[in-house]
């Protein structure tokens, strides 16, 4: 049988050209994203209208009808229809610096400036990772020295008076600096072939994950001293900080372990075949890849650690939120708590979003560089 097939294919050659006009540009976007069907069009209009109305109310309350300046204990605020932002102008020193002595608050201002500046410089990633980390270590030490005083003619200030944004930064920085290395060690330990090491790491991780942060902080700050010999006095701030570090490490360890598991076995074998020892393989081959994989999840934990600093106010240490709460106790201004908390909300939002953006940029960088080679 030699009949010709009924199927066919026609050879043709045409130069590449752009897609038709209605498949690109604004019109295509409108059609595919906003008005795909009549129902979608109705929703677009309804939700759009709702959004505009809400936005109008927000702008009217927070800008048009707002009072920005109110001397005489906020007299102008009492008749205002909108927000009373004067409360921030009145209380910003307490919000930013807590109970820190008024005349020494420039030290706190300097600390905030240092953190913001080095954060911005780090985010550009023009400097090497080593330089950036060394810079952070220096910023951290300077923060402690400035807060503590007692050197270079600075008046000493007890840790019970530390507060506001500098304290928040300090707690957060310490949590990450201590917690991340500990998390990596716990994750590696949990995969160890030595049963004692593995058991110890599993017990730590599972134990800490099983209790609330609040309980851990209470234990570290208030109950632990009862069991320690009286001559061994560790500052409450340090005890609570250790609690924070362990809490962060227990969660981050599981994240890091997920990354370690995602690195193919062959990577370790290839490194072994080159004669590299265990810690070199970890440092040069396994961890760089594992950490790159878990950047999104890790930044989740890092941002959470920043927000967890608010728990310190329960121990009588005034972080930004605690300081704001204290500032709003003033009977003249107690009515404007909404504005005060909105301000702090905005502060947290800016800082956390900046970290989130930084995390995504690292992620994009990794993706661009490393396309997985089986």
């Amino acid at each position: 049988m030699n009949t010709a097939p009924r199927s066919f294919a026609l050879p043709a050659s045409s130069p590449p050209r752009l897609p038709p006009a209605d498949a690109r540009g604004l019109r295509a976007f409108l059609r595919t994203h906003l008005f795909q069907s009549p129902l979608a069009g109705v929703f677009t209009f309804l939700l759009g209208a709702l959004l505009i109305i809400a936005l109008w109310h927000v702008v009217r309350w927070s800008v048009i009808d707002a009072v920005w300046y109110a001397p005489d204990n906020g007299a102008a605020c009492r008749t205002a229809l909108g927000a009373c932002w004067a409360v921030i102008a009145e209380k910003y020193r307490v919000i930013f610096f807590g109970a820190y002595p008024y005349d020494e608050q420039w030290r706190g201002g300097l600390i905030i400036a240092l953190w913001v500046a080095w954060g911005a410089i780090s985010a550009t990633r023009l400097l090497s990772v080593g330089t950036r980390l060394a810079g952070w270590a220096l910023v951290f030490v300077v923060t402690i020295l400035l807060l503590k005083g007692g050197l270079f003619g600075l008046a000493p200030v007890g840790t019970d008076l530390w507060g506001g944004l500098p304290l928040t930064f300090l707690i957060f920085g310490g949590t990450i600096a201590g917690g991340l290395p500990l998390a990596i060690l716990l994750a590696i330990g949990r995969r160890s072939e030595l049963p004692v090491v593995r058991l110890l790491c599993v017990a730590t991780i599972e134990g800490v994950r099983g209790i609330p942060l609040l309980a851990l902080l209470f234990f570290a700050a208030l109950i632990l001293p009862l069991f320690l010999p009286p001559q061994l006095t560790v500052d409450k701030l340090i005890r609570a900080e250790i609690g924070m570090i362990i809490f962060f490490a227990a969660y981050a360890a599981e994240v890091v372990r997920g990354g370690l598991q995602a690195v193919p076995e062959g990577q370790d074998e290839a490194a072994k075949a080159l004669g590299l020892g265990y810690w070199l393989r970890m440092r040069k081959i396994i961890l760089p890849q594992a950490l790159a994989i878990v950047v999104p999840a890790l930044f989740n934990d890092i941002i959470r650690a920043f927000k967890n600093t608010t728990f310190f106010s329960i121990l009588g240490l005034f972080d930004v939120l605690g300081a704001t709460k204290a500032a709003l106790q003033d009977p003249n201004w107690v009515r404007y708590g909404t504005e005060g908390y909105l301000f702090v909300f905005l502060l947290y939002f800016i800082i956390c979003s900046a970290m989130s953006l930084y995390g995504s940029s690292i992620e994009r960088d990794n993706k661009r560089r490393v396309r997985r080679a089986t």
Partner: protein
Amino acid sequence: MTVTRDLVVEMSGLNKWYGEHHALRDVSLGLAAGEKIVLCGPSGSGKSTLIRCINGLEAFHEGDLIVCGTRLDGTQDSLTAVRRKAGMVFQNFNLFPHLTVLENLTLGAVYARGEPQDRAIERAHGLLARVQLTSQTLKFPGQLSGGQRQRVAIARALMLEPEVMLFDEPTSALDPEMVHEVLDVMEELAVSGQAMIVVTHEMGFARSVADLVVFMDQGEIVEAARPEIFFDAPATARAKAFVGQISHAT
């Protein structure tokens, strides 16, 4: 301990089990300096396990194994000594995706051998030229084709200045049009007098390069012969069946 003989790999009575499965059965084999052994056999015959035992990626339970003068006795020292003289090339390349081609080559030299950075870089450039990848030095593995990746992996193993090269199915993960560029590099290496053991299904390569073809099945060596004898007149029924199948396929 050092053994002074002309053999770079010498094993006798090697046995290995996975659970109760007897994966290697009384395997004895020697590779002389400058010679090439091709290991072949159906999948699951133990050839990959065997080659992975040679540089300690797999442990064995019984028998003697001396590689490049070092007896593999399970200690970390013996493993390290062997791995610094035996280069390994994997089926899946196993390049380090977060490092450039150049860094993939220099990493072992700098950190495992303690070689100065600039000398390692110089040697790496030489080896990349040898595998014809001079222009790819600063690329990442993910930017290379499969054939290029495997040539980088060969260059990386050669950085050890190995006394023996171990190839574990180096062309099995490649698209057909890239197989020959890898085989060309391996042939050049063989001609230069590099001792090697190659697990492969490329029978053309085995014919032209091997000094000895070793046929394995179910964890044991069934037959070992010069390639022209093995392919044209295999002695055992199992080898005959195997040769019949692969010559049918190619």
